[in-house]
């Protein structure tokens, strides 16, 4: 499983950075999502999935490998 990121959809709500600050940040330049780990990080699967569920804009989604 991997996390798909579409920064064009990001509305900067910050839900990802709020729920998993060790995995996500918001760019100081444009406010949009930045992923701090590998999008296939097996140790972060649950947190990545939770962030995708919380994301309001569809910028984060899960895909099967």
């Amino acid at each position, binding site marked *: 499983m991997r996390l798909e990121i579409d920064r*064009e959809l990001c*509305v*900067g*709500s*910050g*839900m990802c*950075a*709020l*729920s998993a600050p060790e995995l996500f940040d*918001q760019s*100081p*330049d*444009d*406010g*949009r999502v930045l992923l701090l780990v590998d999008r296939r990080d097996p140790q972060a699967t649950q947190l990545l999935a939770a962030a995708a*569920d*919380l994301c*309001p*804009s*569809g910028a984060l989604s899960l895909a099967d490998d």
Partner: protein
Amino acid sequence: MTQDMTPVALAGPEHEPFGFPMQRDCPFHPPARYETLRAERPIVPVRVPDGQVAWLVTRYADVRALLTDPRVSSDRTHPNLPLTESVTPQTRRNIAEVGRSLIGLDRAEHGPQRRMLITEFTLRRAQELRPHIQQTVDRAIDAMLAGPQPADLVDALAVPVPSATVTKLLGMPYEDRELIERAANAQLRQSVPAQERQETSAELHAYVDRLISAKEANPTDDVLGRLIRRNRQTPLFDHEMLVGLTMLLLVAGFETTASMIALGSAWLLSNERERAAIVADPAAAGPAVEELLRYFSVVDALPRIATDDIEIGGVRIRAGDGILISFASANWDDAAFADAATVDIGRNARHHVAFGYGIHQCIGQNLAREELQIVFRTLFTRVPTLRLVGDVAGLPFKNDSNIYGVDRVPVTW
């Protein structure tokens, strides 16, 4: 209104739709009928005060699905937009005018506008405002403790904290907050006569118009000044749109947070165990605030318009139909929150939709979180003997406001 706009499926003499807004039975709970609707008719026709029929959406899953569905529009100029109060034609025009920025736009137009603002509302920016919010809260509590008893928590804390925060953020003189507080309150109250609402709205508009003109002439180092400078490089907003956007940020950023401070404090004062938990562990305020946001859902419902036929929840919403998305009902859906009618400040409630969902999810949410956490943590730590005067059920709850709340919370210590 053409026939296309009022499809037969929505209403009929044998099925007169329920009226909306629905009545609350308990002041801390959403209308009890939502529970029955979630179980039996999760998407149901309702009649709004101006007579229009719209679909009320009550389940968490349907609410989230429709808020991310490209066939659901936020167009505030649409004649079928279901408003939850009776409005004058002038008010409808004002609603459409404010809708030219962010709140009334769909994906293609909304994206570039929102992007021009999001660097101002990131989690980090909200956290940077912590010292300012803490100082505001400390001063408000100092002033309350130095004054007579009983004090009113709405006056002492719930109004000044968000008001000081939003004026600081946008770069407005703090002295001008009285007009903002008065106008925000009047605009949202159905019991305030239309004439008076129009006058305060015009007064606020004139004030914001002057403010934006001054910042256009001399862009200051604050959200509005920086927005004006960015807008010069990539013009998206004309002057009137900047005025409308500022009014939106003022009203949305102020009244909602004030309501949550007032309701949350009243609830915590009536619930000693939860209050003690917040005082004992500063980290407990984070999840507690999420849970209280979920539980109170001060913005019960917002309107949308279907731009195409949509099959969902056993009904067929037709193109042009009005839709009312109930955040309050979704947040009380047991399918998303176990035992949703009970406050559990230890639960993880962050997936609530009190800030909405989809591209329009509240841009000020992280600022609101900071304000609420600092207020609850500081108030009950600094004033451990604080208590309500009288019974919580006897408080003057705002049953006529588009943002739910309470007018006064008398306290002593």
